[in-house]
C-alpha cells in the first residue's frame, strides 16, 4: 500500500498569491493513497525540509510529492532530505505549480484547478515509482587532445601539470597550429614565435605528454571514462628517435623547386623531405612521398639517406595504427581560411600582389620567405602603399558566411601598424564595414593605428581591383563622405574569413558531438557549459568552436583541462539512474532503438544458452552513454525498452488521473 505525503509550498506569495494553497492541500488529502497533506510558506527552508523528514519518519511514507517550484530548483534539496530518512531519492516527485502555474496564470480559481491536476498526476506517478540506483562508471584517468594549436597545447599542458597523462595528436609534422605562422600578435605586439616556441618545447618535454605528430585520430568508441581511440601515425620515413634534426637531409634533397610550402602559404618552396619551419617541434623531418623522387622514380634517389649521419632515413616504414584508452577527450582542431577566389573582383590568384592576411603574416615574419622584409610577390619591390580589405567572406551571407570572424579587424590594424613601422613614409588604407575591437586594450590599439600611425580608414567596401602598369587600382566606397574613391596601391591584403578546419564535420561525427551548419563544434550550453560538448567526456577548445583570438583560445584550453581534472578527481563517474533499460525477454532484436539513439548508447548483446550457443541478440544500453532522453522508447515496436522513472505504466496512470 502506498503511503504518500503531500507538501504544498507557498513560495511566499509567488505561489500563494495565485493558487489557493489551502484548498489545494485539502483536496490533496482526499486523493487515495495520500496519508497527509500540509502546506508551508517555504518548503526549501530548513523548517520546511525538517517537516518533510519528520513526516517520512512518523508516517512511514513510501513516497513524497511536493507542489512547489521547478524541479530544476530544488529537486535535489528534497531528494537529499528524503535520503536522510532512508527513502530512495527517486520516490520524491515535484509538481511544478510555480513556473507552470502561478507565474503564468492570473485567474486564481482556474490556476488552483490546474495545480490540482498536476498534483494528482504526480501522486499517481509516485505510487508507481521503483527504487533507482545511480550509475557509477569507472574512469580511465588519461586524456586525449586532438589538435596541437595553442588551444590544444594549453589544454594538454594544464592536464599534464595536474598529474594526468595526456596523448596529444597533431596532424601536421609540427605542433604550433596557426599561431606559429603569425609574426607579432595584437594588441601587445609580442612576437608570436618568442612566446610560442618555449611552450612547444615544454609540450614535447613534459613527462606526462605523449606526442603524436603527423598523426590523425581514426576512430573513437566507448563513452565517458572509457574511450578506445585508434590513432593513425602516418609514416615520416624517418626513425624519429635517432634523428638529430641536423638538416643535412633537406639540404641535400634535389626537389627544391616544385613543392610550395604549406607553412608559408605558397610564398616559398620546400623540399620533399622537410620540416615545415626551422623551429618545428619535434625537429624531425618527414618525407612527402607524393613529391619524393625515391617514391616517384622507383627508388632511384637516396640522397637524403646518403648524407644522414645517424642513418635514420628508412623508406620502408609504413603507417602505423596505435590504440590508446582514455577517459576524456578535448577537440581542438582549429580553423582554416575561406577561399579568396570566391571574389573575382579582388583578383586573388590573378594578381600576384593581392594576398591574404595570413600570407602577409609570413611576409612580416623574420623566419618567413622574405626574412621579414616586406616585399611584394610579383617583383620583390617593397610596397609604399597597401590597401587592406576587411570582411572578405565574413558577414557576407550571399557568397560567404554570415558570421563575424572576430580577429580580422584587429589583425588588419596590426598589419597596417607593422607596415608603417617597417616602411617609413608608407601609407595604408583600410576598407571596413564596422570595426570590432572589444577586447582588453583593443579599441586603444585601433585608435593608435589611426591617430599615431596615420592609417586611413574608409568605411565601405571595394568593388573592383585592376592592374595599371605596376600599380593596383582599387575602386571602393567611402560611405562616410558619400564618395566613390579610387586608390593606386602597390599591394592589397585581404582579411579573409575564418572557417572551421576542413574535415571538422567528420571529426565531430566520429566523436559523436554536435556541430553547427558551418562545422564549428557546438557547446553543451552556449553560456553555462561552454567547455563541454553535447557528449559526456568530450570537451572543446579554441577556434574549432568558433572565431576567437589567442587569449580566448588559451582560456578555453585551460577550461577544458580543468573540467577534465575535475572529472578525474573522483574515483568513479556518477550518472543519474534515470536511463533506459531493456526487457531482454521481450526484445526481438530489431534494433530500431539503435538507429534513433543520438548518443550511440545501444549495443548488441548475445544471449546464450548453457552450451554457449547464441539464442538471440538483444539490445543493451550503455549506462555511460545513455542520457535518458527516451527516443528509443518511442521507436521500440515490442515495448521492450523503458526509461527508469518514466515507465509506461507511470505515464498512463498520470494521464488517467486527469480523467477522474
Amino acid at each position, binding site marked *: 500500500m502506498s503511503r504518500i505525503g503531500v507538501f504544498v509550498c507557498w513560495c511566499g506569495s509567488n505561489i500563494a498569491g495565485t493558487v489557493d494553497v489551502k484548498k489545494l492541500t485539502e483536496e490533496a488529502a482526499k486523493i487515495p493513497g495520500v496519508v497527509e497533506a500540509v502546506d508551508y510558506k517555504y518548503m526549501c527552508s530548513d523548517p520546511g525540509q525538517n517537516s518533510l523528514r519528520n513526516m517520512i519518519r512518523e508516517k512511514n511514507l513510501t513516497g513524497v510529492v511536493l507542489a512547489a517550484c521547478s524541479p530544476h530548483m530544488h529537486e535535489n534539496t528534497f531528494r537529499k532530505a528524503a535520503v536522510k530518512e532512508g527513502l530512495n531519492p527517486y520516490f520524491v516527485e515535484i509538481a511544478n505549480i510555480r513556473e507552470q502555474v502561478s507565474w503564468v496564470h492570473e485567474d486564481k480559481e482556474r490556476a488552483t484547478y490546474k495545480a490540482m491536476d498536476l498534483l494528482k498526476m504526480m501522486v499517481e506517478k509516485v505510487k508507481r515509482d521503483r527504487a533507482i540506483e545511480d550509475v557509477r562508471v569507472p574512469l580511465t584517468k588519461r586524456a586525449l587532445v586532438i589538435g596541437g594549436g595553442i588551444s590544444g597545447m594549453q589544454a594538454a599542458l594544464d592536464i599534464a601539470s595536474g598529474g594526468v597523462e595526456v596523448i596529444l595528436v597533431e596532424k601536421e609534422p609540427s605542433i604550433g597550429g596557426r599561431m606559429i605562422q603569425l609574426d607579432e600578435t595584437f594588441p601587445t605586439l609580442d612576437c608570436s614565435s618568442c612566446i610560442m616556441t618555449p611552450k612547444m618545447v615544454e609540450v614535447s618535454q613534459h613527462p606526462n605528454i605523449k606526442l603524436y605528430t603527423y598523426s590523425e585520430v581514426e576512430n573513437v568508441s566507448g563513452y565517458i571514462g572509457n574511450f578506445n581511440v585508434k590513432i593513425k601515425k602516418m609514416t615520416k620515413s624517418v626513425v624519429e628517435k635517432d634523428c638529430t634534426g641536423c638538416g643535412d637531409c633537406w639540404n641535400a634533397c634535389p626537389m627544391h623547386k616544385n613543392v610550395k610550402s604549406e607553412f608559408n602559404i605558397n610564398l616559398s618552396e620546400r623540399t620533399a623531405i622537410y620540416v615545415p619551419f626551422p623551429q618545428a617541434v619535434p625537429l624531425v623531418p618527414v618525407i612527402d612521398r607524393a613529391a619524393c623522387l625515391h617514391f616517384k622514380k622507383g627508388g632511384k634517389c637516396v640522397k637524403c639517406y646518403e648524407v644522414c649521419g645517424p642513418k635514420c632515413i628508412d623508406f620502408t616504414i609504413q603507417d602505423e595504427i596505435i590504440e590508446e584508452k582514455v577517459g576524456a577527450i578535448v577537440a581542438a582542431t582549429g580553423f582554416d581560411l575561406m577561399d579568396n577566389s570566391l571574389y573575382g573582383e579582388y583578383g586573388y590568384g590573378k594578381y600576384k600582389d593581392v594576398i591574404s592576411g595570413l600570407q602577409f603574416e609570413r611576409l612580416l615574419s623574420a623566419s618567413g620567405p622574405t626574412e621579414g622584409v616586406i616585399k611584394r610577390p610579383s617583383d620583390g619591390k617593397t610596397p609604399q602603399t597597401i590597401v587592406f580589405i576587411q570582411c572578405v567572406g565574413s558577414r557576407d551571407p550571399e557568397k560567404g558566411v554570415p558570421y563575424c570572424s572576430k580577429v580580422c579587424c584587429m589583425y588588419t590594424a596590426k598589419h597596417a601598424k607593422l607596415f608603417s613601422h617597417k616602411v617609413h613614409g608608407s601609407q595604408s588604407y583600410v576598407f571596413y564595414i564596422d570595426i570590432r575591437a572589444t577586447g582588453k586594450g583593443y579599441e586603444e590599439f585601433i585608435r593608435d593605428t589611426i591617430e599615431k600611425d596615420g592609417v586611413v580608414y574608409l568605411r565601405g567596401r571595394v568593388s573592383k581591383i585592376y592592374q595599371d602598369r605596376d600599380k593596383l587600382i582599387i575602386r571602393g566606397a567611402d560611405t562616410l*563622405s*558619400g*564618395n*566613390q*574613391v*579610387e586608390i593606386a596601391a602597390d599591394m592589397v591584403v585581404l582579411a579573409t574569413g575564418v572557417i572551421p578546419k576542413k574535415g571538422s564535420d567528420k571529426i565531430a561525427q566520429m566523436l559523436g558531438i554536435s556541430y553547427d551548419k558551418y562545422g564549428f563544434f557546438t557547446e553543451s550550453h552556449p553560456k553555462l557549459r561552454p567547455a563541454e560538448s553535447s557528449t559526456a567526456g568530450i570537451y572543446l577548445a579554441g577556434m574549432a568552436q568558433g572565431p576567437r583570438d589567442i587569449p580566448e583560445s588559451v582560456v578555453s584550453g585551460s577550461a577544458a583541462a580543468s573540467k577534465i581534472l575535475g572529472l578525474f578527481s573522483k574515483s568513479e563517474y556518477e550518472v543519474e539512474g534515470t536511463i533506459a533499460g531493456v526487457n531482454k525477454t521481450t526484445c526481438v532484436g530489431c534494433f530500431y532503438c539503435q538507429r534513433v539513439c543520438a548518443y550511440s548508447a545501444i549495443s548488441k548483446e548475445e544471449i546464450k544458452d548453457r552450451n554457449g550457443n547464441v539464442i538471440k541478440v538483444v539490445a543493451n544500453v550503455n549506462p555511460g552513454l545513455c542520457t535518458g532522453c527516451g527516443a528509443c522508447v518511442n521507436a521500440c515496436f515490442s515495448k521492450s525498452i523503458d526509461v527508469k522513472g518514466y515507465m509506461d505504466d507511470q505515464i498512463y496512470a498520470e494521464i488517467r488521473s486527469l480523467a477522474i
Partner: protein
Amino acid sequence: MKTIINEQDRRNFVSQVETMLHDKLAKCYQCGKCSAGCPVNFEMDYTPNQIIKMTELGMQDPVLNSKTIWLCVSCNTCSTRCPKGFEVAGIMDVLREIATRKGIESKTEKEIQVFHKVFLDNVKSNGRIFELELVGKYRLKTKRLFRDMFLAPKMIEKGKLRMSGDKVSAINSIAKIFRDFE
C-alpha cells in the same frame, strides 16, 4: 561623386589644414555627434563630419567649394560636444581661410562670404566690432543699402549701435594674432 586619391596631394592638404588647425584629423571617430547638434546642418551640403572625412581624404575641391564651410555660424556646439575634443568649428574657420586665400568664390553663399571678409577686416582694424562700420560696409558691398533699416532706431535706443567706434588699447596684440595666422 568619384574621387581619385593622390597620396601626395592628400598629405599636403591634410598637413596644411592640421598646421593651421593645431589638431589632428585622424582623431575624429566619425560618430556624427557634431552633425547631430549642428543648428544649420539642415541647410548644409555636407555634414560637419563629412567635411572632416573629405578633408582627410584630400578632397580639396568639394570641401573648399562647399556651402557647409560658409553656413557654419561658429556656434561651437560641435566642438563642445565632440567626444574626442576635435576642433570641429575650427576646421570650418581654417577651410574658409584657405578658400579665401585661394580666391575661391562661393557660388551659393556670396553674401556670407562678403560678411566674413568685412567682419574680419573690422576686427583687424578695431580689435573689436564697430557695428555701424560693419553694417555700412556690408550693405555697400552687397548693394542692399536699405535692407533692415527700420531696425536701426530700436538698436540705437538700446545702445546696440554706437555712432562712433573706438579701438581696443592692445591693438598691437590683435595685429600679431592676424600676422601669426596669415
